[in-house]
């Protein structure tokens, strides 16, 4: 009977308005949380498509350095200073080869050869995953990784202009060649093959372990200090990074700055989306709270009479709490469903390019937190409004 009396007080258009705005706001919030959770691993992993937070650092080569090469190397003091910077998580050096290297290949009965150099970096900085990328001192095989730019340069520059056929990565990876190492009065031949292309490290890479071994076997005692460093950034969007680099005349590969910017823009876009969604939700909350206020004011006599015959504010609030609660929960279930459908759409599109390993927990957690928060707010406001109206 109480329910029948109170049901008549509801204003259907206002409740529909609340349900619609909350649905939109909640669906966007959940989707933003899910999108952030899905794409964040891509932004933070070392081997990600956005190049993560590791950058290659070198010194700018000026006119003087081309004569006096000392200026291009990093001193121990400079490396230590770099390590001390708050935005730097770790610094790794490039290991260079201190011996004479020659690569040769038999092509159509003709021997072609070229002088070569190798550099090495810790494996975790390498954006190529290959089964063959390992060095075994008992084997006679050296895996090599070359920059993706080399192949692009040939395919889109040289081959294009000379009407030569373009070469795929697969083709290149099938070509074996011979590597001859000389130094320390020793000589040894190895078989070699390109096992991958790095979009991140602009050098010819051989396994770091191999270089350490080869430097002991064939290298001269004195090796040059590093001219390039791999710097792992704690936060790629830190604005002190470009300033520090400029002050010390260090150069960063442009792509890497771009990727930092991309991370920054992605975060900013997510924050913007989340803010807009939260504003929509706040408006929907304001909407229903105002509607409840109107209901209580318009039906002032009904509430006062109920209180006068002994109904408590809690008993009077129960119907409105339940109604708003049911609408909110139903809305959240609908918003979750919408967010899950939209996620399956973007996962379908993105999974052709990236591997998305995330679960749908962020949507579920966002829905649960939002529902609990809203219902808590409503329960408090409904009771407070009714109590404020009926109590003398």
């Amino acid at each position: 009977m109480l329910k029948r009396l109170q049901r008549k007080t509801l204003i259907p258009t206002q409740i529909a308005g609340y349900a619609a705005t909350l649905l939109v706001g909640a669906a966007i919030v959940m989707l933003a949380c899910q999108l952030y959770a899905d794409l964040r691993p891509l932004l933070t992993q070392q081997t990600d498509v956005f190049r993560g937070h590791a950058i290659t650092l070198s010194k700018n080569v000026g006119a003087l350095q081309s004569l006096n090469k000392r200026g291009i190397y990093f001193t121990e003091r400079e490396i230590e200073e770099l390590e001390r910077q708050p935005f730097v998580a770790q610094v790794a050096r490039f290991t260079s080869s201190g011996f004479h290297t020659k690569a040769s290949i038999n092509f159509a009965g003709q021997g072609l050869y070229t002088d070569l150099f190798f550099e090495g970096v810790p494996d975790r900085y390498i954006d190529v995953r290959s089964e063959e990328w390992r060095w075994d001192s008992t084997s006679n095989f050296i895996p090599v990784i070359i920059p993706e730019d080399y192949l692009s340069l040939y395919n889109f520059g040289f081959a294009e202009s000379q009407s030569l056929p373009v070469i795929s990565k697969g083709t290149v990876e099938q070509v074996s060649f011979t590597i001859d190492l000389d130094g320390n009065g020793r000589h040894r031949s190895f078989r070699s093959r390109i096992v991958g292309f790095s979009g991140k490290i602009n050098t010819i890479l051989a396994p770091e372990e191999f270089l350490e071994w080869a430097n002991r076997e064939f290298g001269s005692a004195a090796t040059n200090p590093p001219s390039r460093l791999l710097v792992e950034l704690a936060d790629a969007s830190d604005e002190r990074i470009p300033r520090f680099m400029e002050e010390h005349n260090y150069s960063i590969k442009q792509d890497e700055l771009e990727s930092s910017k991309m991370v920054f823009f992605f975060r900013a876009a997510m924050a913007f989306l989340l803010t807009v969604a939260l504003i929509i939700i706040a408006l929907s909350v304001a909407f229903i709270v105002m509607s409840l206020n109107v209901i209580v004011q318009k039906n002032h006599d009904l509430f006062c009479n109920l209180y006068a015959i002994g109904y408590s504010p809690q008993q009077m609030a129960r119907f409105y709490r339940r109604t708003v609660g049911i609408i909110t929960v139903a809305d959240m279930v609908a918003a979750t469903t919408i967010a899950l459908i939209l996620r399956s759409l973007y996962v379908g599109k993105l999974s052709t390019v990236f591997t998305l390993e995330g679960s749908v927990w962020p949507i579920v957690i966002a829905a649960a937190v939002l529902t609990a928060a809203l219902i808590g707010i409503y329960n408090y406001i409904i009771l407070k409004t009714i109590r404020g109206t009926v109590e003398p």
Partner: protein
Amino acid sequence: MLIELHNLKPKYMSELEVSGSDIYLQPTVKFERGRKYMVCARSGHGKTSLLNFIYGSNNAYDGAVLFHDDDSTPLERRRRKLSYLFQDLRLFPELTALENVQIKNNLTGYKSMAQIEAMLDQVLSPEKKHQPVATLSLGQRQRVAAVRALCQPFEFLLMDEPFSHLDLESSQAVAALVLSEVESQGAGLIVTALDPIGLFPFDVTLNL
């Protein structure tokens, strides 16, 4: 339960207005359970205010209203100790006569459906029970409100000008019903009226 008033005065009335009252600004006025009180006054002399002060629905007074042997909250008191027939009735126009009584009885669970119907039948013609209160006359509504006030346990029944819209016959029917319920509950009765009424055997008459 014993109700005690000490130096009571509505905040919105001057001392001059309440001078000569048997209740307002008196050091102590006692209402004892089991006794029947009539409070007479002309309009605008604070009859409704007095009952509202006791009922806890108006706190705009100086002095004190005390309940002996009772530490319940005003809301608990409304459900178990004090019943009130309001002058403005406070019915729900969209509900039928029967439903208006039921909505109170649902809260207290004090009377059975049969008892409620029997009480309504004593004061109202049977076909009116199922009509929305909005369609009833003022007198009929007053009778519905009286029945509703009896659907709960009480130690005091407060009635604010209960017969103001009733003819003698209806008044007698209501008075008989009220008296039997008050007697069976061993309760006190406080009735306000413009002029003395002879429908109840009052123990005390007070002029406000």
